[in-house]
């Protein structure tokens, strides 16, 4: 039911998205990723059109995080191809359009950094050398801080924040670069209920503004109402690709490549628990 609500919202925001002639945000074709010669992602294909909110689902070890890393060019492909906005990932240069939200804030060697410093570092792909931040850059940082509700913590060290607040810092860092394509790795992991709601609202705003959002999740959780499409991985292959509603009931007999067509009325609005 909540899925239907989000559909209405997303169709209302359809004018914001570029014309259908724009290349898809991501095009993954027969992607194979291997660690130590052992395939972890085994021939995955899908396209994510501009403006779609997609969940990449799967249990631990299903290859979903590896797939996401391959989509960003962080790990190399053994075979197949990945295109970002119509360019092969190796030749993609417009990284300012991509906002990556890692699973957790890395502590590194423990050198402190303020919330504002970390958020502003999200602009690294678009800032010019030797220039101080422009008024627009600073405004983007302020706006990013505001939209995750951390303006009053801007001068605090990120290490002093709770896990949920750190997660919001990471989302703000992605926002500060002004991207139109977000890739988020388990944004709800380790976040308490109140913060989960705040995060869900932020991601809903992104979706409404026409951004492409790819969420790597192990369960839909509080983000369920936002998600238009779920790509489910198991053992490195796609076992479901379609609306999230009928995930469990329809997954066994769906072929990965024909699943787009199969997503018509196939999903009865059954409230099936998605995991366990």
């Amino acid at each position, binding site marked *: 039911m909540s899925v239907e609500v989000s559909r209405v919202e997303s169709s209302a925001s359809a004018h914001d998205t570029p014309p259908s002639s724009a290349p898809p945000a991501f095009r993954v074709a027969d992607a194979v990723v291997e660690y130590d010669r052992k395939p972890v992602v085994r021939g995955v294909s899908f396209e994510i059109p501009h403006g779609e909110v997609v969940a990449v689902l799967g249990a631990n070890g299903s290859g979903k995080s590896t797939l996401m*890393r391959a989509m*960003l*060019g*962080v790990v190399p492909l053994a075979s197949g191809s990945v295109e970002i906005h119509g360019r092969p990932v190796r030749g*993609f*240069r417009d*990284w300012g359009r*991509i906002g*990556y939200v*890692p699973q957790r*804030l*890395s502590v*590194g*060697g*423990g*050198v*402190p*950094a*303020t919330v504002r*410093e*970390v958020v502003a*570092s999200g602009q*690294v*792909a678009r*800032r010019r*050398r*030797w220039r101080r931040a422009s008024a627009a850059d600073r405004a983007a940082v302020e706006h990013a801080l505001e939209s995750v509700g951390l303006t009053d913590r801007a*001068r*605090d*060290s990120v290490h*002093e924040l*709770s896990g949920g607040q750190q997660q919001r810092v990471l989302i703000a860092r992605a926002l500060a670069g002004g991207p139109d394509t977000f*890739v988020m790795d388990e944004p709800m992991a380790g976040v*308490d*209920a*109140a913060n989960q709601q705040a995060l869900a609202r932020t991601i809903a705003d992104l979706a409404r503004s026409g951004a492409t959002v790819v969420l790597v999740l192990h369960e839909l959780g509080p983000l369920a109402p936002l998600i238009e499409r779920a790509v489910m991985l198991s053992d490195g292959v796609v076992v479901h690709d379609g609306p999230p509603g009928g995930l469990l009931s329809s997954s066994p007999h769906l072929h990965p490549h024909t699943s787009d067509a199969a997503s018509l009325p196939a999903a009865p609005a059954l409230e099936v628990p998605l995991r366990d």
Partner: protein
Amino acid sequence: MTDLFAYDFMQRALIAALLVGLVAPAIGTFMVQRRLALLGDGIGHIALTGVALGILTSTSPIFTALIVSAAGALLIELVRVRTRTSGDVALALLFYGGIAGGVLLIGLAPGANTATLTSFLFGSVSTVSTEDVYAVIALAVIVLGVLAFFGRELFVLCQDEEVARAHGLPVRLLSAVIAITAAVTVVIAMRVVGVLLVSALMVVPVAAAQQLTRSFRVTVALAMGIGVVASLGGVSAAFYSGADISPGAAIVLLALAVFAVSVGVGQVVRRRRGRGPVPQKGAEAVPAGTIPQTKPGSLDPGSPST
């Protein structure tokens, strides 16, 4: 204070010490954040091979040390990335290779023995020549220039390598930039504190600064300040003690003393800062954090049965 500046050799020593104190903690902050705190030490050991090579071939030891330690720093990066060796093992391999190479090569040099290496092991700031000072100035300008040029990218890289890749940053190039900049810094600092203590000036001021700061930028600035104070203090102490005190050792011990003090001060400051709002926040946060965690798991399945 006036007699300190009355001697030319002391002026040169103080300039060298000032620059080393300024530069080493600046690159050191990035190395500490990248968990490569001992990289400087590894490069220092390799630099010893370079020094021996310079003596053996009768070229400037600073020049050969620069080439060999830059190559060694790149090798550490390669070993770290290419072989499945963890960073500390890669460093260890180079530590021992560097020392062994240095001792071997110096033995081959006519008229030189391991005692020749001693001044490089422990530093000999009082024998810094005018040419050395120019070399140190040039290298310091290069290091600070590189950090200013790449600072923003290096911050992202040292924070999280995967994020850096997802920003499309040239991660390998930037890693090499850190390694080579560290190598240049080691060679600058070699004459002042010696290769055995070089890493201390890259790490200890940073460790001291981060006890007191919340911002990366302020940490870099404060670490540089601590580095300068320790370097000038150490060289001065050596001068006034009538050369009974080794300047390198005095510099490092001063930096360690600053670290000890800032640990204490940092704890007091944090406690005072936390005394107002934090305990309240903590008291609220504990139930807020624990109840939602237990609720879906244990309360929900339990509630139908009870």
